[in-house]
């Protein structure tokens, strides 16, 4: 091994000490682990490499132990967690070739809080790269957003910037952004959440992985040039915000969707040419993480010559190049005989293509720059010996008991809810996203799940992102289950068969036992639901330390889910027809604990979260899909936040038709209309089909009840009524009003 001598270090580089290690986010015992591992003081560049590899973002040191408990297999799963994105089988294309869906969700929370437009844009860019690195063409994007209270002075600016940033990137790249989530809660005042999901389609026999193979193979750098962007970014993503966040600001990364679009086309051409042995995008801690991962997965070493890295700025040091987070870059191991062909493709697209190293037989990560060895480390140990923690956790305290019901008539309560930023129309958001490019969007945003046709076939993917953080805080296990169950329902309500999920686990500081308790509980719930509903977890992302001065976000494990529709004629939309009968599927107990009604109208977070019975969820979901398959229903919508009243109102607005929901003598009006019992759907059918629907339900052991009828221009909850135009105005103006546009 070439030993690194202090004398070889450029003089301006700081001496490596425990204090410097601490500035890099390495705890004293972690620094000691490095000293033990390499038997000497690391160089500055090496310290940077360790800090990148061992921070929470790359090493998952607080979460790994628990993530391992999630179910990840199933007949549909081609690649589970561990690759850039999950891969599942989705049947053949028009020529009979097997197709795969490649999808994942990832957070860009901290960067978006610092610079909302660019932070969100680069988040979208990063997740798109994860998908096309695997050989898939992205066909859809979703985003789950959480912001502080509507009246927090930062909220508008962050919302406007994030939405603009997501749009600017996805729209220019040319992927339809078809769905997502948007919520406001004071717990996100100091930490917004931006979770971006991308979904792609590839030939199942044309998936590319990151594991290098073969000794002496050229390692190629592709895409944009390297600048000092985000140096230290991966470290930042894992640090709690504090008073000094201003000073920690690293250079902000700027997204370049034009380069990403060219990179996509060039990579897909390159893959088709047979030149690629393995490929990996450069994400957090770019060159470091990608090179180590390719070597580690392939059981090889990697030698890099930084003199050959295309740089955008002058005099970049090895440390800066190894930690740069410049966007729109890839690393590839190339079949040497294909070099000329590969280079021609990148020349055509005006992108950089440079051989920057090679694979080596020893377990070694060797980095040279300007004639010096800047790093010389055992490669496998960089990820293999990363710390892993079993952090102490306690079950969070039970929420206060459920107090008295609000004093409100149901229609006033509905208008307050549907006119609020949390439950008003999201059109203000998704109209800023091109949700139709690629001309395969069958069900646009604004419904349950979005439906995107598999190009050239008569089948489609259904896509959704869901979580109810209020529930997760009150009862992490039930909340975790509910997030998966709601995703399952959203897919089922479109007629889709749920296939698999990706999770994006956003939490506060895991070093606090209550936060760790939320994390552990949510994972238990997600795991149980994923098993029971046959939706294995194929990948995900963990974002911890979403906390500012001790103020943590609500536990927010966003679930992104994919389902399959075997025939486009079986797609069920949300809009019923005039004259239809509405049937409520599922049991209503009037559960108001942690309900939208209490939290939105009175800011009360009382009572337990609604319990989730997974066997019932499954039975009801299968029942709705069977109804859709039999052509018995004209519309379906799942019940979630705001219960029956909000679901019925959304269906009425989608149809432009009035709806009358009957009262229920067994429950208090607010409990009946706004209770959030799970496993429920509201479906619409022709009056003459209602009886056969009820008969089927009896056979299937599914409780159903007639809930109302469609038609007219009035919306009714029992004896209370509002005109459709007033309802529509409240719904449509909720976000424009927040943004000061109306």
């Amino acid at each position: 091994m070439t030993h690194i001598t202090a004398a070889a270090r450029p003089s301006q580089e700081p001496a490596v000490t425990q204090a410097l290690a601490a500035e890099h986010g390495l705890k004293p015992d972690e620094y000691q682990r490095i000293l033990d591992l390499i038997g000497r003081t690391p160089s500055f560049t090496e310290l940077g490499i360790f800090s990148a590899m061992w921070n929470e973002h790359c090493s998952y040191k607080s979460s790994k132990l628990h993530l391992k408990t999630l179910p990840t297999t199933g007949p549909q799963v081609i690649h589970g967690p561990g690759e850039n994105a999950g891969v599942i089988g989705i049947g053949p294309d028009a020529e009979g070739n097997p197709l795969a869906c490649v999808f994942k969700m990832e957070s860009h929370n901290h960067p978006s809080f610092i610079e909302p437009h660019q932070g969100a844009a680069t988040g979208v860019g990063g997740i798109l790269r994860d998908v096309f690195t695997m050989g898939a063409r992205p066909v859809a994007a979703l985003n789950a957003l959480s912001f502080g209270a509507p009246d927090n002075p930062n909220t508008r600016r962050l919302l406007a910037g994030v939405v603009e940033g997501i749009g600017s990137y996805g729209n220019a790249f040319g992927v339809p952004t078809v769905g997502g989530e948007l919520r406001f809660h004071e717990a996100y005042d100091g930490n917004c959440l931006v979770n971006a999901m991308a979904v792609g389609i590839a030939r199942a026999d044309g998936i590319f992985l990151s594991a290098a193979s073969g000794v002496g193979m050229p390692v190629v750098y592709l895409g944009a040039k390297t600048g000092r962007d985000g140096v230290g970014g991966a470290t930042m993503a894992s640090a709690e915000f504090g008073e000094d966040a201003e000073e920690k600001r690293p250079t902000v990364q700027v997204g370049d969707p034009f380069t990403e679009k060219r990179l996509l086309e060039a990579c897909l051409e390159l893959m088709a040419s047979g030149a690629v042995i393995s490929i990996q995008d450069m994400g957090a801690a770019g060159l470091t993480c990608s090179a180590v991962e390719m070597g580690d997965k392939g059981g090889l070493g990697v030698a890099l010559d930084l003199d050959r890295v295309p740089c955008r700025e002058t005099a970049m040091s090895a440390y800066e190049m190894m930690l740069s987070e410049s966007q729109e870059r890839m690393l590839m191991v190339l079949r040497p005989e294909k070099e000329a062909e590969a280079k021609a493709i990148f020349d055509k697209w005006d992108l950089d293509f440079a051989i920057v190293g090679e694979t080596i037989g020893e377990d070694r990560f060797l980095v040279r720059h300007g004639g010096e060895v800047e790093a010389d480390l055992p490669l496998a140990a960089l990820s293999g010996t990363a710390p892993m923690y079993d952090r102490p956790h306690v079950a969070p305290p039970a929420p206060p008991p459920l107090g008295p019901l609000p004093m409100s008539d149901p229609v006033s309560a509905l208008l307050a809810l549907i006119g609020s930023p949390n439950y008003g129309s999201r059109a203000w958001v998704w109209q800023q996203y091109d949700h139709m490019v690629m001309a395969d969007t069958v069900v646009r945003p604004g419904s349950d799940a979005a439906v995107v046709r598999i190009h050239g076939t008569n089948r489609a993917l259904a896509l959704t992102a869901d979580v109810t953080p209020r529930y997760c805080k009150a009862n992490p296990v039930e909340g975790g289950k509910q997030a998966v169950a709601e995703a399952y329902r959203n897919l089922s309500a479109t007629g889709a068969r749920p296939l698999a999920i990706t999770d994006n686990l956003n939490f506060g500081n895991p070093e606090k036992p209550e936060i760790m308790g939320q994390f552990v509980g949510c994972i238990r719930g997600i795991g149980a639901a994923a098993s029971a509903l046959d939706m294995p977890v194929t990948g995900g992302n963990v974002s911890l330390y979403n906390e500012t001065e001790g103020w943590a976000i609500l536990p927010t494990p966003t679930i992104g889910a994919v389902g399959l529709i075997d025939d486009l004629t079986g797609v069920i939309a949300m809009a019923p027809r005039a004259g239809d009968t509405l049937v409520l599927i599922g049991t209503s107990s009037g559960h108001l604990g942690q309900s939208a009604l209490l939290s939105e109208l009175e800011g009360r977070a009382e009572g337990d979260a609604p319990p989730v019975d997974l066997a019932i969820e499954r039975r009801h979901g299968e029942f709705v899909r069977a109804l859709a398959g039999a052509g018995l229903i004209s519309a379906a919508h799942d019940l979630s936040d705001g219960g029956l009243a909000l679901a019925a109102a959304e269906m009425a607005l989608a149809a432009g038709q009035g709806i009358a929901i009957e009262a229920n003598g067994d429950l208090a009006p607010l409990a009946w209309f706004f209770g959030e019992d799970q496993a429920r759907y509201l479906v619409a059918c022709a009056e003459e089909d209602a009886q056969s629907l009820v008969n089927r339900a009896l056979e299937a052991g599914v409780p159903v009840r007639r809930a109302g009828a469609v038609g007219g221009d009035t919306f009714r909850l029992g004896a209370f009524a509002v005109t459709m135009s007033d309802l529509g105005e409240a719904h449509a103006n909720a976000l424009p009003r927040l943004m000061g546009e109306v």
Partner: protein
Amino acid sequence: MKARVTVTLKNGVLDPQGLAIAQALSGLGFEGVNGARQGKVIELDLAETDPDAARAQAEKMADKLLANAVIETFSVEIEA
């Protein structure tokens, strides 16, 4: 009184537009373009008639709204 606020990206911040412009100029046969950076200029028509006060006002506006301090810097000129 007219104030002109010029907002440019900080050094080191990626400027995709600038790169594309430089490439396009080369593509058009212009030689010797080592690089290009794009910024914006905002011309303000201010009621203020004192140049120093106008400058101070424009600087405040740039600080508060016209420039994004995280990635941009600005300069102010006052026109007679």
